[in-house]
């Protein structure tokens, strides 16, 4: 029981990170019908930006308060990652609209390879460890054999994720920008006839996706305390799995899918074998895509000529 509770706490933490990345996949797929293969690497870039800003803030500016430093990190990572993704969309995807079906996907694969190797060349292939932070824990259940604990950083990850998701939900549901975004998702041509700047809306979708991926990046840095240039690929595929599991195109679906993938991964490692935890995640992707491609909350895809 204690083990179960502890894994539940860990799984929700990991799931929040996957959910934040998954939203970027699902929004881009919803609006232009493309798997943004480079999104996992955008997440990795944001984690690096977080590490670099954290070092600037703590060593150069000498800010001692971890909370303030992390806040500055979060803002900087969100802004800079948004600029990155805006540029990527502008350079690699926008000119391909109306090209043949696989062109944007191949371009995105190229971009993914480019990003991870750019970071490898620019920042070096070694892992980047950060000083552990927010390491204090609260013991929830004390027992002689196994104590259930929740750490401050887990609480912080839950809180930040929840607050930002609520803000994001408000943005998509209540603001003119969100309305334009949902309109483009339903019918791009009709939306442009009604005076919505489709290109701008698509750009902003990429910006929103990147900002949320940046939150995930900062959380990832805090949670694991180490970042590497190759960290984009596997979390990227897992977050994509989450988006597919939740129903691609559906925002609550992405969050639910993320939490499920996080829980499955953590429970798999705890009760079966840690060696095959990635195999488990990849198998879920395959099984879901084959047997229920519309996911939990998605709409079945209608093929039009």
């Amino acid at each position, binding site marked *: 029981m204690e083990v179960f509770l502890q894994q539940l706490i860990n799984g929700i933490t990991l799931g929040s990170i996957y959910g934040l990345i998954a939203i970027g996949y699902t929004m881009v797929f919803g609006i232009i019908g493309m798997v943004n293969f480079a999104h996992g690497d955008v997440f990795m870039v944001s984690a690096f930006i977080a590490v670099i800003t954290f070092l600037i803030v703590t060593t150069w500016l000498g800010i001692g308060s971890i909370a303030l430093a992390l806040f500055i990190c979060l803002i900087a990572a969100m802004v800079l990652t948004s600029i990155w993704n805006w540029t990527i969309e502008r*350079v690699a995807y926008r000119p391909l609209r109306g090209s*043949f*079906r*696989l062109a944007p996907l191949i371009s995105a694969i190229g971009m993914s*390879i480019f990003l991870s190797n750019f970071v490898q060349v620019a920042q070096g292939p070694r892992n980047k*460890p950060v000083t552990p932070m927010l390491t204090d824990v609260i013991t929830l259940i004390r027992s002689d054999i196994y104590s259930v604990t929740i750490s401050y950083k887990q609480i912080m990850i839950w809180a930040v994720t929840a607050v930002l998701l609520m803000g994001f939900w408000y943005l998509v549901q209540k603001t003119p920008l969100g309305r334009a975004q949902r309109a483009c998702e339903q019918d791009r041509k009709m939306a442009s006839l009604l005076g919505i700047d489709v290109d701008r809306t698509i750009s902003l979708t990429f910006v929103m996706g990147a900002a949320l991926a940046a939150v995930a990046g900062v959380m990832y840095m805090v949670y694991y305390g180490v970042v590497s240039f190759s960290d984009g690929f596997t979390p990227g595929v897992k977050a994509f799995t989450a988006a597919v599991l939740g129903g691609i195109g559906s925002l609550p679906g992405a969050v639910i899918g993320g939490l499920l993938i996080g829980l499955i991964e953590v429970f798999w490692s705890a009760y079966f074998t840690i060696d095959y935890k990635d195999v488990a995640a*990849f198998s879920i992707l395959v099984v879901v895509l084959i047997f229920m*491609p519309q996911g939990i909350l998605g709409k079945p895809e209608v093929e039009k000529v």
Partner: protein
Amino acid sequence: MSHDAPAAAPSIDWSRTLKDAVITGLIATAILGPFIGLVTVQDMEHRLILQTRWPLFLALLAILVVGRLLLQIFVWGRPAKPKRAPLALPPSVERIAAPFFIGLLFVFPISVLFALGPQGSIKWIDNYGIQILIYIMLGWGLNIVVGLAGLLDLGYVAFYAVGAYSYALLAKTFGLSFWVLLPLAGILASFWGIILGFPVLRLRGDYLAIVTLAFGEIIRLILINWVDFTSGYAGISGIPRPTLFGIPFNASDNGFAATFGLEFSPIHRTIFLYYLILALALLTAFVTTKLRRLPIGRAWEALREDEIACRSLGINTTTTKLTAFATGAMFAGFAGSFFAARQGFISPESFTFMESANILAIVVLGGMGSLWGVVIAAVALVGGFELMREMDFLKLIFGTDFDPTQYRTLLFGAAMVGIMLWKPRGLISTREPTAFLKERKAVSGSLVTEGHG
């Protein structure tokens, strides 16, 4: 930005151009600043610290801003040229080019041997000849799946791994010879192709790509973790080398050199391996060109152009896709068993997603569906990087610790994006009809963009 604007205006709008340059500079600063201007390194106590690299950052920034400014003024401001049909080799050139090229490949090792002697030529035949031919063969194999049938397979390297491990394990456990195991590896790989393909081929486009990627990763992770069977990360070493129909390439009395009365030299095996992979690659090309003329090949190309139209014309899309998948996998299996036999050592490190992406890049850059394109792209990408390692003057320009191999994958990625923007159909694209009534007419589809199917 101005290149989206009508390009007919003869004079240059200076204020707009300058504004654009300033914006480019700001964006480049935001993007490159943290990554190029600053670098994270570990100090003596393994703590992460920051170092600055402002000169490098400023140089890159200047290149970007000035480059974009020049492009604005001299390229994008000019009226756009009318779109041309993609480059395709005229049939007369193609008729001479193929025998000429094959002949060149046959004389390559012998001429290198005469020019450089047995010691100096090993590197050329092995690093350039064999290495490039392996990639050409893999490119041609993947070309069947991606180029002809239009199925984006991101896990192609899994079948390469199946071929390599089949040969390594069967040869080591049962002592079977290379010539028995080569077809067996191909059959096993295509068998895996069918097993993996069967459930996923109902999926379209992007989904198919992601599922094949997941399968590729699953196979690699199993190779890593199933230590009893594959010995995991450590890999399998001491894989038996191929023999010339029973004559081994060693210094013993019944070895190749002794049998033919030659002085023993390792170059014999290298040349033998070269001709072996050349034969395998040519077999792939031969089968591909023959299949294209058969109903199944035509069904593949029809499937690539429009799946829904295909289905409404009564083509069984599942079997069509499955044969493409299995045929492509079979050639990967052949190449895999050759790879294991050549290296004598294999480990899961050789079968990562990057390898799939490299092969895909070769097919995409060369022009999907074009055999010539794959050759050109493989020679340029694989041979080009091998050659860059030789060029010492690059060290003079970029400093002594300049290692071009570091930039290899970076350029692969950039080239994939670039080719999609510039020529989405690849350098040489053949969308000409292979089936026609009286004369070959250019398809209007090769001149305009394709609709979404």
